[in-house]
């Protein structure tokens, strides 16, 4: 039999993938009947397609992980904006950048409890109790510390100055946090009380742009989100004492 155009390897692929026009398809089928080697190739290609489907398609029916849930539009947006506005007045903060369209479009993000509060309080309890090695890089090398952490977290990190509040920067460290990086700064009061500021990258729920407070046993946590970074201020302090510190910290970070 003669073929108008010789059957090429590309034809065989297109045949397997159902991308040939009907008449060309018939020609290829004729060709395959007479060429067992080509027919075997085609059978193998089909086997590969079926195998890939069996390998990868079951996940189409899997429930989506929480961070991939695209949220319905927020109805509580006004409330949130009001909360943020209230906070701005409270802290005397000007220039809060809230890109509303971005906020609305955000994808549902990692739960704060698991990715921020828990690791922050745990890191706090682990390292504030250290006598000899509370920090990885000392506060005497502040500039190096900050630029190193900024480099590792791929964004500009700042170590707020809390000397007015009576706290000295002891230093900080880099921490792994599930699949992201986090940084911890540690401060100390003359009476030995230690405060840590935990900073973690992530895709955060923008609902939480306001300041929030959580308490675990005697440890208080103030946390908030600013763009790709989430902050948690952790100390054995009362809510009001922590709020006062947060108010001192926040304006320094957005400068």
């Amino acid at each position, binding site marked *: 039999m003669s073929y108008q155009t010789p059957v090429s*390897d*590309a034809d065989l*692929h*297109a045949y397997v*993938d*159902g*991308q040939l026009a009907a008449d060309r398809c018939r020609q290829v089928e004729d060709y395959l009947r007479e060429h067992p080697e080509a027919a075997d*190739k085609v059978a*193998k*290609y089909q*086997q*590969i*397609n079926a*195998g*890939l*489907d*069996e*390998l*990868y*398609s079951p*996940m*189409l*029916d*899997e429930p*989506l*992980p929480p*961070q*991939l849930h*695209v949220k319905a*539009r927020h109805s509580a947006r006004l409330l949130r904006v009001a909360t943020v506005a209230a906070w701005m007045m409270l802290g005397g903060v000007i220039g809060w950048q809230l890109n509303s*369209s*971005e906020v609305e*479009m*955000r*994808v549902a993000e990692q739960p704060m409890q698991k990715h921020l509060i828990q690791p922050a309080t745990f890191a706090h309890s682990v390292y504030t109790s250290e006598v000899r090695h509370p920090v990885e890089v000392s506060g005497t090398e502040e500039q190096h510390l900050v630029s190193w952490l900024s480099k590792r977290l791929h964004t500009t990190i700042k170590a707020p100055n809390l000397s007015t509040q009576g706290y000295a920067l002891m230093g900080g460290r880099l921490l792994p946090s599930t*699949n992201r990086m986090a940084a911890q700064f540690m401060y100390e009061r003359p009476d030995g009380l230690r405060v840590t500021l935990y900073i973690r990258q992530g*895709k955060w729920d923008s609902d939480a742009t306001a300041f929030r407070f959580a308490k675990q046993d005697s440890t208080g946590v103030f946390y908030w989100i600013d763009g790709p970074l989430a902050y948690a201020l952790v100390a054995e302090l009362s809510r009001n004492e922590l709020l006062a510190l947060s108010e001192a910290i926040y304006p320094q970070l957005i400068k």
Partner: protein
Amino acid sequence: MINQRERIIEHIPRLRRYAHALLKNDTLAADDLVQDCLERALSRLHYWRLGSDMRAWLFTIMHNIYVNQVQRRSNGPQFVELPANDAGIVDSAQAERNVELRDLHRGMAALSPDQREIIILVSLEGLRYQEVATILGIPEGTVMSRLSRARKQLRALLNRDNSPTLRRVK
């Protein structure tokens, strides 16, 4: 607008499948990639032309993110998770099938990312070669040659099964 968001949501399972196959089942990295893709798509929804193929648009975004981010930071060790379907093998036909699938899975991991992308878009997504070329930003001829090379490599694994050889036990 709401309609468009819902259309994106419909495609999420496919985006995941693509990301997982592309990143050799590294679940964390794959879901991160999907999340980045969704975020970018949602924030640029106004760029999407009504009436054009949303799936192709989403795959284009994902491909670009992959090329820009994932490949750049993939210097470190990479995970290859094997599909967990070994347990409870009863009949030998299924056992044989599982071996075949595992070989195929390894074969996929051994392909270059370029080849993997094309195999996924063609075989799993059933996209036309021209569409694949547009998504990946390469000529259709390149799609064909990479597809051909990829299948040749995978086919070699299947052929090997027909002539079993003794494996040295280490």
